[in-house]
């Protein structure tokens, strides 16, 4: 992006004008020279694309049970088989049924509105039955929507994924890749599960990191910019939080929140385990970010260019948005690439304890855990451990390398070491 802007700007300038090299362009040039970091970047882009387009790939559905093929080892033949069963007609048929259900749901909601408006003192029972009816009806609606996909062996899918599954079926028909990575306890295809696990592992890593980023940058920038006793108090709070063993607190919180009645209550608000995970992890990992950003803001605040902006009468908001935030970008990007792997490891850790992603959804941590669980002296199902952990390992390996490379590229002083 920076490069395009720079080149279009240079076209407008006379040829002999001295060209300024922007920080981003400079860093990009340095990064491109770092072969490992570039390889990591390419690998990550490929992994990301594969994960996003997984429903389009000729893979078996991730949750299709074949109990007779339990623990089948990896085999290359037949490479492709006509084994993908999907009922496209059922999807068509569900359309009309869905609009009908939606109409009923709307009616129920109207009735609830009416009960609320009348607000008779003894209407709490009627209110409750009405709410239950609405909940049941909306469950029914999602059931009708998901049933054809569930029958084919998919977890609940979003609109884009559903469209991709349909497209895949029209394009490739029943052809799908054989079990070249073996099968698990229920005869499910490990390769397909690794691909579908990528979607959740990656999205969990990114979203939870973004939450932590939002909290950390706001907190750190505020503390650094306001300064004085506010800064002191805010940083003491961070110090205290630092020595709390968060892993234990998180386990504690998640077990409490996954108690059946609390879980049902949360789910009625649309909050599931993954959302809780985002929030909880975001609430932990912002500490380092806040410290780093605060330090950067304090050193930036005294830079001549900020003073110059203040001298020409720029508003506070303009100074923060135009002068300080862009300079924080490099720190933030480096931190992002180094936090995502930590969050993904943490998700794997929680999945190991049975507190992470819940079936039928899969994540790499969950898959690796399934593999570790079935280690027995009798037979070694190595493919159940090796493939998920290879996927996890490669991704984290690449992220770590990219993070190191970005740090060196954005801060040349460090690269000399």
């Amino acid at each position, binding site marked *: 992006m920076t490069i395009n802007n720079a080149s279009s700007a240079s076209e407008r300038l006379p040829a002999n004008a001295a060209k300024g090299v922007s920080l981003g362009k400079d860093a990009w040039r340095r990064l491109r020279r770092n072969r490992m970091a570039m390889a990591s970047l390419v690998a990550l882009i490929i992994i990301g694309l594969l994960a996003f387009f997984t429903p389009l790939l000729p893979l078996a559905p991730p949750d299709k049970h074949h109990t007779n093929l339990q623990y089948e080892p990896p085999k290359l033949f037949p490479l492709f088989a006509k084994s993908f069963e999907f009922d496209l007609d059922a999807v068509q048929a569900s359309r009309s049924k869905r609009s009908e259900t939606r109409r009923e749901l709307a009616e129920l909601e109207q009735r609830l509105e009416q009960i609320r408006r009348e607000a008779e003192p003894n209407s709490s029972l009627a209110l409750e039955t009405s709410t239950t009816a609405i909940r049941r009806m909306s469950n029914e609606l999602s059931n009708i929507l998901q049933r054809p996909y569930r029958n084919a062996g998919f977890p609940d899918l979003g609109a884009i994924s559903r469209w991709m599954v349909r497209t895949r079926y029209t394009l490739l028909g029943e052809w799908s890749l054989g079990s070249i990575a073996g099968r698990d306890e229920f005869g499910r295809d490990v390769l397909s599960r690794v691909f579908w696990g990528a979607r959740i592992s990656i999205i969990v890593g990114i979203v939870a990191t973004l939450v932590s980023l939002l909290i950390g940058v706001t907190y750190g920038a505020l503390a650094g910019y306001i300064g004085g006793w506010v800064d002191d108090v805010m940083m003491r709070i961070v110090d205290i939080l630092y*020595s709390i063993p968060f892993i234990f607190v998180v386990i504690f919180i998640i077990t409490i929140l996954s108690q059946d009645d609390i879980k049902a209550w949360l789910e009625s608000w649309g909050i599931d385990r993954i959302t809780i995970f985002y929030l909880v992890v975001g609430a932990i990992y912002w500490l380092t970010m806040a410290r780093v950003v605060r330090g950067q803001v304090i050193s930036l605040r005294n830079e001549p260019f900020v003073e110059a902006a203040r001298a020409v009468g720029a508003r506070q908001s303009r100074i923060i948005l135009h002068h300080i935030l862009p300079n924080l970008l490099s720190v933030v990007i480096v931190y992002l690439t180094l936090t995502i792997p930590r969050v993904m490891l943490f998700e794997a850790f929680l999945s190991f304890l049975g507190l992470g992603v819940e079936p039928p959804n899969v994540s790499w941590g969950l898959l690796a855990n399934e593999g570790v669980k079935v280690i027995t002296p009798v037979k070694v199902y190595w493919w159940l*451990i090796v493939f998920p952990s290879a996927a996890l390992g490669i991704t984290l390996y690449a992220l770590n390398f990219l993070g190191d490379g970005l740090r060196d590229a954005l801060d040349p002083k460090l690269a000399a070491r």
Partner: protein
Amino acid sequence: MIWFIVRRLIGLVLTLWVVFTVSFLLMRAVPGGPYSGERNLPPEIEENVKHRYRLDRPIYEQYGFELGNILSGDFGQSMRLYDFDVNQVIAQGLPISAALGIFALSFAVTLGLSAGIVSALYRGSLADWALMSLATIGIALPSFVIAGLSIMLFVFLIPVFPAAGWGTFRQLVLPAVCLGSLYAAEIARIARTGMLDAMSQDYVRTARAKGLSKLAVALRHALPGAMMPVVSFLGPAVAGILTGSVVIERIFAIPGLGWHFVQAALQRDYTLAMGLVLLYTLLLYTMNFLVDLSYGILDPRVELK
């Protein structure tokens, strides 16, 4: 120096209080408790029991009561383990976890340091590349995967170690190595950077110019300087090994604190879980404190404020 220690102690008290308050509120916010199981007590008896334990009082009174108990060192009874109070569980589990942790840490430091030094001395060689790739893989894999792979390799494929249990030295090796491997990898990377940094200093060049051997220069002159970042990593490393033992103890069925904690959390044994969280906070804080202190001793230029 004294002022530094005093400030840290105040911080410790504050931290423990925050952890206690948060976990107390969480515990009380949860509907149900030890008495709402499948076999219900008759309501009158439950009333009496609640009265006995002051569960019928307002929440602030309970809070004060509980705080008083903990200050006098009484963490209460376990809600699930028959005939155990929290102090007994800690007395049993702590030595086990400590032994595992110390062994893992010494493994991590020995292996990490030597790998880092070799890597830095032969920078750019095949050995450097291989060691650093290995270290990065070690960082990129979750410890339970490493544990699973090493069980497959060293227990079933080449039967050298027992799969699980606790008591003998041979049972200790595999879990400690799995627990320490991540930190060995981190230490190797940090030590390598530190060594490279130190090797480019003038005093190292002077030592070389005097005709000292490469090894002597590396160990006597460069190493002390390279140790600083490693030491400052030991704080987080100890913390990580303490918490990481949750996974390892579960896989290898070791009855340490981590194992007890997960059991307590999964079975909603709130008193035990809270006692352990407080204990871990105390341990973590002390370790960070010790590391800060040793930092000041290693490098006289560092001022402790």
